[in-house]
């Protein structure tokens, strides 16, 4: 007969490491009483999303007022856009004086290359079509910017040798003279043959139409008196 009264094994913790068996797992912390509750939409309470309050419709109130938390904090949000109509007007008034090909940053190699190309193209256009097509400073600046942007995108400037612009300009001046001298007669003869062919073709077509109309008119019976 044992002198010790029976004890509830669950009520007395085992001595530490006395038996070599691992201690029983500690009971989980008491659950948040709100976690078992649901709002009017049936959503359980999530402290990462909701405040422990409900709105008048019985829904959990959003923790960040529906703005997504930290990313939507006031300091990181994008500031409002601004209107620059007045600045654009001021900038438009800053056109380069007439005769300057590039009002842009002269140290930019892309702009330098673009200015050379635009000068060459302008020369070609003036020689081919007349002085009235010469671009003014605004138009030149716009073309230079457009070419410079394209050169930047395609990385053209480092490949464009510096003699390309004078070469284009010289070719534009010399080329038409050479072409004019060498092919003037042949060009005129070729043109004449072509014009003659067109005139003959149109004449034949008109003649055939007239003949057909005449024969149709003679084939019809004379109207009864």
């Amino acid at each position, binding site marked *: 007969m044992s002198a010790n009264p029976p004890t509830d094994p669950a009520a007395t913790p085992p001595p530490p490491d006395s038996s070599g068996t691992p201690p029983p797992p500690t009971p989980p912390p008491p659950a948040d009483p709100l976690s078992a509750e649901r709002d009017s939409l049936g959503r359980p309470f999530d402290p990462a999303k909701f405040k422990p309050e409900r709105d008048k419709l019985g829904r959990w109130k959003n923790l960040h007022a529906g703005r997504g938390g930290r990313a939507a904090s006031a300091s990181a949000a994008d500031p409002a856009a601004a209107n620059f109509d007045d600045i654009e007007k001021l900038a438009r008034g800053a056109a380069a004086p007439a005769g300057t090909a590039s*009002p*842009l940053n002269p140290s930019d190699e892309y702009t330098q290359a673009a200015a050379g190309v635009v000068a060459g193209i302008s020369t070609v256009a003036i020689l081919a079509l007349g002085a009235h097509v010469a671009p003014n400073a605004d138009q030149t600046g716009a073309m230079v910017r457009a070419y410079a942007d394209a050169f930047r995108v395609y990385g053209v400037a480092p490949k464009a040798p510096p003699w390309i612009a004078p070469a284009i300009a010289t070719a534009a001046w010399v080329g038409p003279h050479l072409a004019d001298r060498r092919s003037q007669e042949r060009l005129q003869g070729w043109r004449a043959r072509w014009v003659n062919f067109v005139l003959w073709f149109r004449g034949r077509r008109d003649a055939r139409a007239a003949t057909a109309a005449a024969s149709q008119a003679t084939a019809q019976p004379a109207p009864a008196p």
Partner: protein
Amino acid sequence: MIRPGDEPIGVVCGGSKSGKTSLAIAIGRALRRDHGLRSLVFDPYSYKQEWGPWAWVTPDLAKFRAAVAGSHGCAVIWDESTLTLAAGTDDAEGFFTAIRHRHRAFFLVTHDVKKLSPTMRGSIDHAFIFRQTDERSRDWAGIFADNDLRQASQLNQYEFLAKKSFRPVVRHAPTAEELRSFRL
């Protein structure tokens, strides 16, 4: 609100790939967010970065100067000034010293503070200094009379020192997300 007389005249200085332009963009954002300022930006390589809808950006120096001279109450940012600011000329010095009277903030982005004339350096009251050589660190320490700026030679990439006149040096190593919420 930047009160008249408190307009920051600043320099963002550092070598290539140090993060100068990213910080300048963050400064423009902060000036818009905290002070409501529009930014006028000169950036020869504006096609490479997004300055935001609160900034008017041009690669055309003549237009930039005309916009700055004809407007007032903006934040002015001059990127890549190493090649485009002819320091020592009357024109450049006049621009640098007079801008405080027209606009609310001015920030110059440069590779080398020695490209600025002594008059320009004397106007600076804000500096954001990325990694520098030992010699340039000493120069910065001399400009602000603050030996703590000598640590600029030990900065890592994207790290910078923020210095305001008569205030202690603050060392920053922001992440991209932190840069978006950067404050002056």
